[in-house]
């Protein structure tokens, strides 16, 4: 190979590359709001009609606050939006506000990318009045004002949902019940009688055994972490009790674990009961055709003094940014809990409002008038909803450790006693790893 020819070739190639790249880059636009406006990006994980509703809310806000230009941007599902935020945290460009799930908020706080909202909440100009604060459900308003954050408030919800108990009214009536089981002690026999009276029906199907097991522990009055906030509680007698009756129901074929969409299975009349989000109502209304259904608070532990269930639904938080963008982010998330925003968001999302003073707003009143089950859930379930004990290890414990142990118990590899011991030992290690 002629050396001069090679060099010429390389030089031409380089020139070609540079020219083609620079000519293309001319078309790279920048993010620009109008000069007088501050661009306020709000990243969320909603799709479909909820994403459209957030666009409507952004337009409403922009009309009231011409100094801002809020863009509600859908960032895919939970995992994708999480990756997007992590990339922005590393490379710059965090949005002014985000919507994220409980365990994301815990992890983002640990990563130091969220702003403490308490100074804004109590700010005389920008914050809430005492009357407004009193209108919030305390369990929701303080959902992420936690000891593990040094008592800082890292997020609060616009609205929320909660684990609810859905049942096939026709099936339980056929079994001679006029209401569902109210305690977990009654629950196994309740299922047995339903299946006896409704041949061919499966009593109960679950998609996510780890999450469900920990939710049921909560309804027994036992959190998955002890009061010290770091020691797992799977050695509590209630955990063993739950796993024991799960194993019995599984062996009898009354409890099945499935990858199918359990709403679809329930709506098709194949299962008698379903533990699912309170906001599943519209999906059930669309899909259930051949029977009557109802919803309420899940069964509780025999000796529970307080009604409990698990809170679901994303929260709003303000990432760490410069002063102007942080303030803008706060103003947006604060406006999202205003009556005018709720009037749009509650009917569109079927979430519970985090405030208790909204039932007289015409749009919200009309929504609950049209859906008595939603109103019942609001009255029964919403006040009982709290989050699982927050921990950076929660994702691993709920997603891997607990479901694996449950599967091994159901398959007969371990006894329920051994299963909860395994959960406990592995969860202790997971909490230690997570710091």
């Amino acid at each position: 190979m002629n050396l001069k020819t090679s060099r010429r070739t390389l030089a031409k190639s380089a020139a070609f590359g540079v020219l083609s790249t620079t000519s293309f880059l001319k078309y790279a636009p920048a993010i620009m709001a109008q000069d007088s406006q501050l661009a306020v990006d709000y990243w969320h994980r909603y799709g479909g009609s909820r994403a459209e509703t957030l666009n409507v809310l952004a337009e409403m806000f922009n009309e009231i606050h011409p100094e801002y230009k809020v863009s509600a941007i859908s960032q895919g599902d939970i995992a994708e939006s999480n990756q997007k935020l992590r990339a922005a945290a590393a490379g710059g460009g965090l949005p002014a506000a985000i919507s994220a799930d409980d365990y994301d908020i815990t992890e983002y706080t640990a990563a130091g990318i969220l702003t403490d909202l308490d100074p804004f909440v109590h700010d005389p100009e920008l914050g809430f009045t005492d009357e407004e604060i009193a209108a919030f459900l305390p369990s929701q308003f303080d959902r992420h004002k936690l000891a593990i954050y040094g008592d800082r408030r890292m997020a609060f919800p616009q609205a929320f949902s909660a684990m609810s108990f859905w049942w096939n009214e026709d099936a339980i009536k056929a079994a001679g019940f006029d209401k569902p089981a109210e305690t977990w002690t009654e629950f196994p026999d309740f299922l047995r009688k339903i299946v006896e009276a409704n041949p061919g029906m499966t009593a109960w199907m679950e998609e996510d055994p780890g999450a469900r097991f920990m939710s049921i522990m909560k309804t027994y009055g036992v959190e998955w972490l002890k009061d010290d906030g770091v020691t797992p509680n799977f050695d509590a007698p209630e955990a063993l009790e739950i796993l024991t009756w799960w194993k019995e129901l599984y062996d009898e074929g009354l409890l099945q674990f499935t990858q199918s969409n359990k709403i679809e299975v329930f709506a098709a009349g194949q299962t008698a009961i379903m533990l699912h989000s309170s906001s599943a109502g519209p999906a059930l209304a669309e899909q259930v055709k051949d029977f009557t259904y109802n919803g309420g608070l899940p069964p509780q532990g025999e000796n529970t003094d307080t009604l409990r269930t698990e809170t679901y639904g994303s929260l709003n938080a303000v990432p760490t940014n410069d002063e102007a963008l942080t303030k803008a982010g706060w103003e947006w998330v604060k406006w999202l809990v205003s009556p005018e925003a709720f009037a749009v968001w509650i009917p569109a999302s079927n979430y519970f409002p985090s405030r208790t003073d909204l039932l007289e707003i015409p749009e919200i009143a009309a929504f609950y008038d049209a859906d008595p089950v939603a109103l019942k859930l609001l009255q029964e379930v919403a006040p009982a909803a709290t989050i699982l004990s927050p921990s950076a290890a929660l994702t691993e414990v709920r997603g891997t450790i607990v479901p694996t142990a449950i599967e091994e118990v159901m398959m007969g590899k371990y006894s329920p006693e051994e299963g909860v011991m395994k959960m406990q030992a592995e969860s202790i290690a997971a909490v230690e790893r997570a710091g």
Partner: protein
Amino acid sequence: MSAEQIRVSTPEVPSKLKLPQISTVLLVLGACVVVFPFVWMILGSFKTMQESSSYPPQVFPSQLRWENYQSAWQAPPNTLGRYFINTIIVAITGTVGQLVVCSLAAYAFAQLKFRGKDALFALVLGTMMIPGEITLIPNFMTIRHFPLMGGNDIFGSGGIGLYDSYAAQIIPGMVGAFNIFLLRQSFMQIPKDFWEAAQIDGSNSFRYLWEVVIPMSKPIMITVFLLGLVGRWNALLWPLIVTRDETLRPVQLAMIWYQGEFSTDQGVVMAASLLVTIPIVILFLIMQRHFIEGIVGSGLKG
């Protein structure tokens, strides 16, 4: 019993006649497995929401609901068409750019002699071992801090760089070790005599690459083009990471607009999926002969 006796005693089922039949049956079964999701998608695209979520599943729609296609087209902001345009821009520009860059690199590794060539090639191949998740954030930082673009200064600060642009979606994928490897293997099969003849005719390396090497490597060029195009057509995470404006996002991100939390109209989702899939299937059908030649010529196996 001898082998001859066996052949004599079973003359009516000679094994040579059975093999093609078994192969045909296996191929038909395999084809059914491959085609089934497409058939399910087509049937599903005409179903109502109730039919889609019925249990046990209902195979055929009660009637053809063409409205699903209309809904699929209109659901995303600015219609699905906007997302198609973006995907076409990103996929074609990116893939053509990839062919240019990778061809030049492959030519250098195949034809030129320079010190450290083998080590450099090993380094390029080594990048194939790095998972995409690891390069995600460094690539994002490069895009965000691209000097002199998007309000950035010469040091890449002060603005957004190439964030939220077509360029951000295209540039990081323009160099691919696997494509360089494929092209290099193909270029190396061209006899040196051609280069010597080209030199006698006064040709330089660039002209030789353009007029001799690339035309002789058409099947592998088409293979690389198709692989690149399909990869870009299906890209989801990277475009999501580097864009914020819906008017710049590709078609895979439009699928967000069909999802409900607990209830999704699967008929509309299937209609949208079919619309998104059809162009790439048609392209493959047109180019499949060259694609297969390219794969066979490169020595790759599935």
